């Protein structure tokens, strides 16, 4: 296994440029892994990665649409990157506390296409079926029962390949393959995504009902078999100037201990004055690997609000990148990670501010209630030279409830501007004794008191979920976790 001398993940910050409508003028030679013997560009290639990339390429249908469709361009750009991106090791800073050997030591294979029984996705509750939704099974978009007719004019929710409007496809093409901050997993998704789901909101349009994306991995192997089917769902959201939409992403693990690797990517481009409320609920199977990328580009005066509740997966990592592309933006990130089993919950977030008067609040809470459980947090906020009068706050609070439960937090603010208001805080503790005693002094036994206090610890984040049916669902999930087995 070759060691790579050039870490690809260190980048110079992009210069603040005005938002241009022209396609990116970067000259990129597109090299497909299969067809060219071009030498690797920087350092050595990682054979393991190359093998995986080839397997993914083989699993996809040969492109029927024109070569330059957005999806094809994503694939080309990603496969070029993969030539020189090694599998991360514990020596790389972004993975210092996150052990990915669970994935690397298994036999990884792409899911067979299309999913064998697409009707296996867990049924939605009756409330949910009223709302516009898209089911994404093993990375393939399943359109039935989606109830998309109630959406306002001009709004498009569905697969890119089904999009009838040429201008929409062109518009989307302007944004793809422009992300410099990705890592190996971002590129793996780029190479292996079978389809691109699109949520498009035209200018000035306010979508009343939340758009519900339900992800499910139908293909899975049994626990202990050491095989991981890999799926790469990919979604692109474009909200034009002044548009507003709520997006709910729900990852469901289904019953039993099913093993799989889900590697989703969500790309969001939020136009000027737009508003997105993003709810992300992750309840994957306890043996699964889940590595998600969320990349958000915020134009001036836009508002992006994320509420995340992650409780499943054996290894769950959320990479979040928010890039500010204009002044006066509002970014609110609230995340709750629950590690009640032998699992790792990881949040690596980055907020890059290059324009003045941005306002951001980040609250990260995690509860580790298992002696083999682990939570990791790396919250990076870059307040660059031109981001004057920024108001950025970050707070992380962790609850460790069992001996040897571990949490690694690294809140970090990199501030270059000199007229800013920034703060960060971190606290790690067990439940407060004085609060427990207060319960006892009122006749409530310690077990019930602990449950109530743990639930209320998470409630600060859960209460921020904007849609009540999602909130209720999550509250029930948490209550179930709190019941001692």
């Amino acid at each position, binding site marked *: 296994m070759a060691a790579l001398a050039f870490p690809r993940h260190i980048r110079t910050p992009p210069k603040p440029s005005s938002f241009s409508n022209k396609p990116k003028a970067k000259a990129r030679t597109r090299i497909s892994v299969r067809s060219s013997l071009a030498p690797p560009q920087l350092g050595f290639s990682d054979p393991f990665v190359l093998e995986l990339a080839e397997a993914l390429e083989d699993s996809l249908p040969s492109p029927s649409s024109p070569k330059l469709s957005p999806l094809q361009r994503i694939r080309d750009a990603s496969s070029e990157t993969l030539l020189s991106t090694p599998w991360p090791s514990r020596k790389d800073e972004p993975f210092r506390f996150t052990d990915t050997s669970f994935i690397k030591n298994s036999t990884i294979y792409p899911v067979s296409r299309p999913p064998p029984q697409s009707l296996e996705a867990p049924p939605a509750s009756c409330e949910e079926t009223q709302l516009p939704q898209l089911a994404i099974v093993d990375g393939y978009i399943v359109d039935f029962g989606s109830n998309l007719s109630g959406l306002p004019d001009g709004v498009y929710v569905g697969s890119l390949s089904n999009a009838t409007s040429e201008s929409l496809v062109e518009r989307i093409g302007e944004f793809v393959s422009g992300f410099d901050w990705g890592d190996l997993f971002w590129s793996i998704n780029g190479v292996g995504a079978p389809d691109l789901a699109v949520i498009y909101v035209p200018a000035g349009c306010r979508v009343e009902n939340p758009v519900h994306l339900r992800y499910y991995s139908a293909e899975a192997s049994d626990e202990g078999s050491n095989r991981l089917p890999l799926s790469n769902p990919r979604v692109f959201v474009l909200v034009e100037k002044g548009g507003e939409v709520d997006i709910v992403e729900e990852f469901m693990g289904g019953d039993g201990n099913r093993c799989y690797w889900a590697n989703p990517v969500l790309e969001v481009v939020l136009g000027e004055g737009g508003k997105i409320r993003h709810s992300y609920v992750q309840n994957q199977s306890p043996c699964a690997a889940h590595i998600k990328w969320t990349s958000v580009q915020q134009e001036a005066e836009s508002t992006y609000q994320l509420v995340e509740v992650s409780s499943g997966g054996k290894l769950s990592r959320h990479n979040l990148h928010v890039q500010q592309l204009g002044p006066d933006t509002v970014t609110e990130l609230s995340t709750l990670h629950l590690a009640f089993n032998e699992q790792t919950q990881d949040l690596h977030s980055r907020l890059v501010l290059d324009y003045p008067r941005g306002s951001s609040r980040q609250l990260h809470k995690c509860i580790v209630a298992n002696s083999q459980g682990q939570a990791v947090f790396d919250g990076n906020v870059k307040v660059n030279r031109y981001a004057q009068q920024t108001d950025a706050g970050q707070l992380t609070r962790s609850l460790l409830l069992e001996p040897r439960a571990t949490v690694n937090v690294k809140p970090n603010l990199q501030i270059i501007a000199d007229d800013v208001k920034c703060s960060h805080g971190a606290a790690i503790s067990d439940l407060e004794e004085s609060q427990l005693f207060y319960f006892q*002094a*009122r*006749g409530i036994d310690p077990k019930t008191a602990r449950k109530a206090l743990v639930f209320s610890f998470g409630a600060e984040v859960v209460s921020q979920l904007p849609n009540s049916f999602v909130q209720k669902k999550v509250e029930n999930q948490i209550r179930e976790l709190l019941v001692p087995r």
Partner: protein
Amino acid sequence: MASAPPSLSTARPPTAASPHGDRRRGALPPLPSCGARPPSRGGLRALRSVPLRRCVVRAALSTADRSAAPVESGEGKELLLEVRDLTAVIAETGQEILKGVDLTIYEGEVHAIMGKNGSGKSTFAKVLVGHPDYEVTGGSMMFKGENLLEMEPEDRSLAGLFMSFQSPIEIPGVSNADFLNMAYNARRRKLNQPELSPIEFWAYVYPKLDLLNMKADFLNRNVNEGFSGGERKRNEILQLAVLGAELAILDEIDSGLDVDALRDVAKAVNGLLTPKNSVLMITHYLRLLEFIEPRYIHVMENGKIVKTGDISIAKTLEKEGFKGVSEM
């Protein structure tokens, strides 16, 4: 050592022998008593010097109040709390705070403890309810015949011992309604009564809010979160009203309250007093004692109760300070 406490500790055996069952100790808090209170406390004070006779008089008065209660004269009242030579230290440092406290409280009595800062008043209260910061090193505490030292804090609370904290803490994320519901249901479970659903509980709690002049939205707020000092104290008394107790220990319930709030709180406490339950107040000032009139006032100094008397102690304290009291 303290002068012989006015109540009878030697005259009769503790109530361990008396059957608890038929006394319905665990009954849910009675409705605010509408019966007349013992009419002339002045009359009682006059009898202070004659312990035995007072007991009889009290029994007679309580029979007058509760028409159906068959109380034998001389038997009178049940012993609620008996503390003998209690010593306690701070668990972390081992520093001794209580150095031999003796106290006896019968049902239907109102006691008050006053003393200098640092004399051990709050510590005494906390030790009674089982606060983990303190460790008992000697002596005994019996509550209704049960040994408190062998009971966990939640069991002591379910037995009927309530303490209103001096600085109630916040519990963000847990609403008042949920908290009270949990505590109330814990009591119902203990009495083998069916628990109340949130709606039934709401109907039960709602009228109590009026008692304390509190608004309805209070129940939706989180426990003590963002509450002013006065609101927190009111919350404590609300919990007392909802949960009920045989012995309510009020630790400096008057600190931080303005006159109106104090009047409301005192009115609520008085309304909860019955011949069957008692109150132990810890306070610094005469003002509270004018609202909730105590039968006995104890002065605590240096970890011990050094003097016991009636309201005149408080008056002397107000005028002359602790020096004046020690010369009484």
